[in-house]
């Protein structure tokens, strides 16, 4: 299947490894991955802050750049939600553009959603395995980012994790509560945002897991920064990275060893 | 019947309607609207077969009322027994209590329990001196354990509100399964549809305003004793 990858600006700049992992996983699962070079951003921050004209301009660009592709897959749930929930409304009153927006929306998938519902992947059958180097199971928890709600997703990332041998999924307390990122909310109301993030970090700490799988670069930035400020050692990986590691697609020994060392300590 | 009240030119209603019409983008008067009917399949929590005294008693207990069944002939005696246990000296009595529990007036007199004076110059204030209220009810809703009381001649609002104990007599035949089934019954009952006050009672008065600690008997009765009169 031909798939066009949309990589959010945050992932491109701050978490490129997560996008590389997505490419590797999709190719391994038999997809031909395209990366339209003309892509820039989905316009979410503009839209969320009320700059609709600017958001519209970016949406038009996105629709053009991704028009030739049958499937658009993005590891960022919030970008997928922007396209699926909001793009058509940006063109209220312009039926032609609204139709193009709806068409793009119908072809857009979040990464885990794509694996579970489109590819119907069975990682166990593919031999996915991600236990610790010393043979013990790896305790992994996962972060439910708010945008999954708008996409109609529930536990797709958890389901995928459950298909990986050697992984011990640990549920997160108060998983449904927002981590406090909210885009510019984090800088407009930092006291509230920081409080919410610290609440979430405390729940993460309580799981005793060494890894938190988080599919949303913004949430990851927020939570990783909060955990680091608190001196917590939990590691954040995207679902793509976790899956890629379990399929041996990343080949990055040093980081693996470091993660293993902390768990064993 | 009450006298209907007439509109006054300065009561603001015409101006309000004009503003509403403007906001709705209409300048002509509206047609009679056709609302979406309440969806029984989505709402219903109990079916006709569930209209049982047993379910009603169970749910009434769950919401904190004391509930039991009693045969018609024994109802009056049971009421008096409940009142004596609670040390009641004066009772606010609804006119329909006797219908639910034949012989009640006689048994109360025999037990030395006085019915407080209704109406008169003291009016509803007299109810403040009662230790208990004894009333019949219009109906019961099995699914939620709810009592349905209507106001009317000889059926004061206060008897089920002011005294700290409310003894309610419910006829088994008047228990409907679900709240959805209540309104047809209300419409069928003379006087009920036009009652000035219809009250659904689902438990004793309660609050958790202070630190979430549950306290009963805040303003209304702290104890509600329900007697379901079977086979009636």
């Amino acid at each position, binding site marked *: 299947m031909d798939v066009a990858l949309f990589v959010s*600006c945050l992932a*491109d*700049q701050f*978490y*490129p*490894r997560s*996008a590389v992992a997505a490419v590797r996983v999709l190719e391994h699962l038999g997809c031909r991955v395209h990366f339209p070079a003309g892509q*820039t951003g989905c316009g979410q921050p*503009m839209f969320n*802050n*009320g700059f609709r004209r600017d958001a519209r301009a*970016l949406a038009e*660009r996105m629709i053009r750049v991704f028009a030739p592709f049958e499937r658009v897959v993005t590891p960022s749930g919030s970008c997928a939600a922007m396209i699926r929930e909001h793009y058509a409304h940006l063109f209220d009153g312009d039926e032609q553009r609204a139709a193009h927006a709806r068409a793009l929306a119908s072809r857009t998938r979040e990464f885990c959603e794509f694996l579970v519902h489109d590819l119907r992947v069975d990682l166990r059958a593919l031999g996915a395995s991600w236990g610790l180097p010393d043979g013990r199971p790896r305790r992994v928890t996962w972060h439910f980012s*708010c945008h999954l*709600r708008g996409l109609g997703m529930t536990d797709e990332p958890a389901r995928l994790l459950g298909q990986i041998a050697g992984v011990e999924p640990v549920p997160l307390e108060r998983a449904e509560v927002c981590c406090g990122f909210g885009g510019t*909310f984090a*800088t*407009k*109301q930092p*006291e*509230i945002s920081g409080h*919410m*993030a610290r*609440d979430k970090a405390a729940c993460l700490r309580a799981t005793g897991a060494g890894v938190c799988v988080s599919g949303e670069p913004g949430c990851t930035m927020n939570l990783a*920064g*909060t955990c680091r*400020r608190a001196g917590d*050692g939990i590691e954040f990986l995207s679902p793509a990275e976790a899956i890629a590691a379990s399929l041996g697609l990343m080949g990055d020994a040093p*980081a693996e060893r470091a993660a293993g060392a902390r768990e064993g300590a | *019947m*009450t*006298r209907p009240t*007439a509109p006054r030119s300065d*009561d603001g209603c015409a101006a*309000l*309607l004009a503003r*509403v019409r*403007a*906001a*709705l983008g*209409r300048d002509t*008067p509206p047609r009679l*609207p056709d609302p979406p009917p*309440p*969806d029984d399949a989505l*709402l219903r929590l109990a079916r006709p077969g569930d209209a049982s005294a047993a379910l009603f008693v169970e749910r009434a207990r769950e*919401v904190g009322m004391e509930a039991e069944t009693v045969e018609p002939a024994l109802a009056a005696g049971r009421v008096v027994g409940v009142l004596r246990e609670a040390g009641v000296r004066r009772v606010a009595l609804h006119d329909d209590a006797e219908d639910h529990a034949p012989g009640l007036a006689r048994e109360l007199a025999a037990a030395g329990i006085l019915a407080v004076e209704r109406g008169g110059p003291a009016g*509803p204030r007299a109810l403040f001196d009662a230790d208990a209220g004894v009333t019949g009810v219009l109906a019961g809703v099995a699914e939620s354990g709810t009592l349905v009381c209507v106001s*009317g001649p000889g*059926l*004061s*609002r206060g008897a089920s509100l002011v005294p700290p104990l409310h003894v309610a007599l419910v006829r088994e035949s008047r228990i409907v399964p679900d709240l959805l089934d*209540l309104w047809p019954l209300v419409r069928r009952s003379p006087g009920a549809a*036009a009652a000035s*006050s219809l009250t659904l009672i*689902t438990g004793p008065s309660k609050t958790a*305003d202070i630190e979430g600690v549950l*306290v009963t*008997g805040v*303003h209304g009765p702290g104890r509600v004793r329900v007697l379901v009169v079977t086979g009636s």
Partner: protein
Amino acid sequence: MKGRAGPHPLDVPLPHDLRAAAGRASRDVALQQFVGGATLHKDRGRRETCRRAFGERYDALRRHAGAIKQHTLDHLDAYLERFIARARESGAIVHAAATAAQANEVCLAVARRHGCRLCVKSKSMVTEETGLLAALETAGVETVETDLGEFILQLDGDAPSHIVTPMIHKDRAAVGRAFARELGVAYTDDPRRLTMIAREHLREKYRRADLGVSGGNFLVADTGSVVLCTNEGNGRFCTGVPRVHVAMVGIEKLVPSMEHLTVFLKLLARSGTAQPLTVYTQVITGPRRPDEDDGPDEVHIILVDNGRTGLLRAESRELLRCIRCGACLNACPVYRTIGGHAYGSVYSGPIGAVITPALRGLRDFAALPHASSLCGACFEACPVHIDIPRHLTRLRAQIVEQRIAGWRERAGMRLWGLALRTAWTYRLAAWAQRLVLRRLARRVGRRSRDSARADAAHRPGAWIHAGPGPLRAWTQERDFPAPAARSFRQWWARERGHARAPRRDIPGQRGTPA
């Protein structure tokens, strides 16, 4: 004037500085404990109770209830006309007030005409909105709040902080002190004992009151009835014992019929307080009949507009579906962190954030629509399916259009948008950002508190502990990551730009290359 000295908590200077209020609130440990604990518990309770009752039907039921309310609003003129006619037929006297001042004035006129000296009042958000209590007291009518929470708040000169559980922010010791001070009783902090003290005090008021004031949870068009849903029974006292009853109700509370009322009765208490029904649901249709033993001689219904017809316009009409259940407050992590007073207005939480700007001015309350991470928990909780996040972003757009947003933010967003207009401007901006932030990380990153193990685990690399300018707000609360040495685009260009490119370094793998 009762209560402790100090300004009324909702009497905030305008424009409302939410950030300052939020900062204070989020450091208030006691507030966190009460509000945080209680709301989480109630939100869980809502989900549990609704799941138990409705199972898979819950979401469909919320949409159904929302559709009924929407229909009613779409035909509000017809339903209002019917309600007014039926209410008059039942003997009630109906008034309509365009503004808060008018609503209060109607009530005062009724009190004056009947020579009322003592008023007992049951909880009503609309009367908070209009400030009725202060108006009555100024006019010389002693007015007592009878809902236990409101009674305590009145005694203590405090204000409600939650639509349904108004004193969620207060502890038992504070109540004990207020009672000892204002009622002259011996200090106790036992909730049961305190409640009984209030009960006795209020009974005396009920006996003597000549005016009862209430709000209304619903208005039923077909019958002209006012519906009150309470747990304590004070509503029944206020509407049943005094000679005159005044019900002040927002025009949006209309439902078509008693059958439709059932839809909302099944959702209201489950959504707000995790109980199937409130203890008392009272349907009031006109004054007492001539042959009844008790009940008011006169019932006045004041239909309140006060900005609601403004909200009735198409873009915001949905907001009037609100049945004031409080579910969105309980679900909201922002409300949970800052409590109700921080919103600076009578209506707080998610619904407050979207209706307060409409009712009191967007310019004065421009911070409210931004006090949200758009997580959507409120939308999931709302029994009438109001898409609150959509309205938050709509108001944010209005803030930009009306140039309430500061020039710095406008400039910043415009610049960001321009950078994303073409691939090469994106790459240029990304390069500049990478340069600046990685330099910053080298400079300030090392000075941060370090945990060698944490460092080894985190990717992409260095962290900024304290940043200038736009980074300051972020780094006040948490660290900010430096961008990776090479972006994904760069990796793709190298790895996939040519066919069969060998696998090389994956960007960000080894920490911070220079």
